[in-house]
């Protein structure tokens, strides 16, 4: 580890043991860092840590690795694959100067894309800690990350949605009912993604088939995903199941990922397996990752780091595998990590900024649990801020109520609200489909038709529905 950091403020001397300590103490307050015992002991100490952190040269992060190189494959990934040429543009800057630079017109969309492989997660985390919410929004909004599979995600003035038709028993008709509801509200261009209630290969295969058949029948330009463990998805692929995207929850330390039961080699194997199916029509981004501050502490694998730095390190894992989507599930983990609306909103903006700066197609599960000090108004705020920041996608669920995972996330209606007030469209291929199917009369303006789209009118009068009605 590197040296300690010291700051003289009047008669008071503040000392920080090492870079990890300085980073943690400079982090805006949140309950997870308190739980980990790494939080600043006073507001003044935090402000001093931020002043000191601003003086740290970006180069320091290449030498002073926060988790030892020899102990952690993610540190090795970050260091070994660092792009020195891309870094050369910003290599003379301190963290504080980096913030200024990011805010200048010099840091255009093109330039931000060029330097992205030269930025490490720790650099992104460090600069985010001294940025205000508006800085995080402004810079993220300049970053452009475009990915594709059966449609195109991340184009300017677009906001995609993951349709999340979860059901507590994975009932096919229950899932289909939520899927139909979502499609008829214009949701599902990022992915139709199910969290299975029963998590095994047979169930995943069943759900993959269900979604694949719907996507094929209605010719929906989108992709499906069952959010099961990466090793399950590998087995599904081997068995010939119709896998569009490979899912995995990822964390920012090797130990976190071991606790999740995978490593980088397994992700590489799964990516190759999915690519071999060649199911994308527009592009071949085949991975879907989820993250969230607090997962490393929760797995007792945080190496004394603050939770936001651990989170940013997870993005090094993600960018190795060219994902279609990365989703920070910001309020799901509970109040022991992010206590209230203020902490959830801050974390959502940090994650989105760090992800985008590192070149990821960053979306956000704008969400909360019932034991957090948060409500729908906090979610409205975060959704609006993220929409302004150019967030790639958000979740879509009937009436914000996930009856399987027991938490609240954004509804189909919420996405339409954001599209309207911010002038955002869905993925262009999906928009064309919405109009073709007469779900929307003007998809660019998020105008739904007032009649039942003919293709689905037949569905609703089908024998299955009638049978249950009878």
């Amino acid at each position, binding site marked *: 580890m590197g040296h300690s950091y010291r700051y003289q403020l009047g008669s008071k001397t503040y000392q920080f043991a090492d870079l990890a300590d300085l980073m943690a103490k400079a982090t805006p307050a949140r309950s997870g860092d*308190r*739980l980990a015992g790494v939080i600043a002991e006073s507001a003044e100490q935090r402000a001093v840590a931020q002043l000191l952190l601003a003086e740290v040269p970006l180069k320091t992060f290449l030498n002073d690795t926060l988790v030892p190189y020899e102990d952690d494959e993610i540190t090795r990934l970050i260091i070994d694959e660092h792009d020195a040429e891309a870094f050369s543009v910003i290599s003379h800057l301190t963290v504080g100067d980096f913030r200024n630079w990011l805010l200048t017109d010099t840091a255009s969309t093109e330039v931000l894309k060029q330097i992205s492989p030269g930025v490490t997660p720790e650099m992104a985390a460090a600069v985010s800690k001294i940025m205000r919410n508006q800085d995080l929004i402004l810079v993220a909004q300049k970053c452009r990350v475009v990915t594709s599979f059966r449609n195109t995600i991340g184009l300017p003035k677009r906001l995609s949605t993951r349709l999340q038709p979860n059901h*507590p028993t994975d*009932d096919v*008709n*229950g899932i*289909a*009912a*939520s*899927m*139909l*509801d979502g499609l*008829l509200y214009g949701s599902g261009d990022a992915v139709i993604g199910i969290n299975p209630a*029963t998590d*095994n*290969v*047979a*169930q995943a295969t*069943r759900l993959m088939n*269900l979604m694949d058949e*719907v996507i094929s029948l209605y010719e929906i330009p989108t992709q499906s995903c069952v959010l099961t463990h990466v090793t399950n998805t590998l087995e599904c692929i081997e068995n010939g199941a119709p896998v569009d995207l490979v899912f995995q929850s990822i964390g920012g330390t090797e130990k976190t990922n071991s606790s999740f039961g995978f490593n980088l080699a397994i992700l590489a194997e799964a990516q190759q397996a999915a690519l071999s199916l060649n199911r994308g029509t527009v592009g071949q981004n085949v991975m879907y990752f989820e993250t969230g501050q607090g997962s490393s502490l929760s797995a007792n694998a945080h190496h004394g780091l603050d939770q936001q730095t651990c989170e940013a390190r997870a993005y090094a894992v993600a960018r190795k595998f060219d994902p279609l989507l990365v989703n920070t599930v910001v309020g799901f983990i509970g*109040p*022991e990590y992010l206590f209230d609306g203020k902490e959830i909103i801050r974390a959502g903006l940090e994650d989105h900024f760090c992800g985008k700066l590192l070149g990821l197609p960053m979306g956000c599960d704008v969400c909360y*649990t*019932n*034991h957090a000090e948060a*409500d*729908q108004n906090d979610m409205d705020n975060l959704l609006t801020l993220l929409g302004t920041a150019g967030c790639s996608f958000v979740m879509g*669920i*009937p*009436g*914000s*109520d996930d*009856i399987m995972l*027991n*938490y*609240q996330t954004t*509804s189909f*209606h919420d996405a*339409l*609200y954001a599209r*309207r007030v911010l002038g955002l469209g869905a993925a262009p291929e999906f928009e064309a489909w919405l109009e*073709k199917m007469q779900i929307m009369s003007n998809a660019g303006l998020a105008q*739904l038709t*007032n009649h*039942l*789209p*003919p*293709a*689905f*009118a*037949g*569905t*609703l*009068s*089908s*024998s*299955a*529905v009638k049978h*249950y009605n009878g």
Partner: protein
Amino acid sequence: MVEDAEMLIVDDSQADDSMVIHNPWRQLRQFTAARIGIGRAGVSTPTRETLEFQLAHAQARDAVHTELDIESLKQQLFQLQQDFPQINSQPPLVLNSRAIDRVTYLQRPDFGRQLDDSGFASLKPHYTKTPYDLALVIADGLSATAIHQNAVKFIASLLPLLLKEIPDFSLAPISLVNQGRVAIGDDIGEALNARAVLILIGERPGLSSPDSLGLYLTWSPKRGLTDDKRNCISNVRLAGLSYAAAAHKCFYLLSEARRLQCSGVAIKDRSTEKIIDSSAVQTSFLLDSKVDRKGVDGK
């Protein structure tokens, strides 16, 4: 709360409905409890659905922040002891975790898992050399509402099974715990010297399930055991798993624990696992053959 909900609906029926676009697929709620077919005002959630959501959230929030009604629970348990004179007739023990209030509890799960010092002291007189067969622990968890509505009724379903099937069944004094998490049951079980501990705890409330009771069984409880040593039964409530079904599951797990002298993953209840056959095609209504292909093709 039910009355309030009905009032809301009655009032709404008087409202001018012309601004709301209804969704004919709301009929699909026959397949799911998800809030589908809400309808819309513009593209936004209509007033009634917005306020119903807020009511559900308010109930879940209240469940999290309601304090355990110790006096009422004591009375209910006293009545139970009248019905089952065979069991330990001592009044319940009232204990606290190291989390001093709800705000601390929510931010420090580690405190909620540990009994405070006075708790250990008050358990000491109840320690026996001959271990109890079972210690029952009732803890607020994340929903005191779940405890108030379900805990004693569940115990009333469980006790007859235990008394009938386990010879000379001995029950430790029942503990009531404020600001408790699951692992605190192990502290208590160890301090009392119980062969097994069953903790009844309020689960994290869902928007449509603020009253869900969770049950966790640990064999040979000791401080510091991890989740893989416990068996869990979830969603015990009027609209979920019935008391009788939960009691049977619980009795099954305890019997297995007594037979194998362990708990947790080793005695997972495999008897209830359904075998899923992915090749057996289950077609949803969305794939029904009567789909209007004209519409699908956009012609």
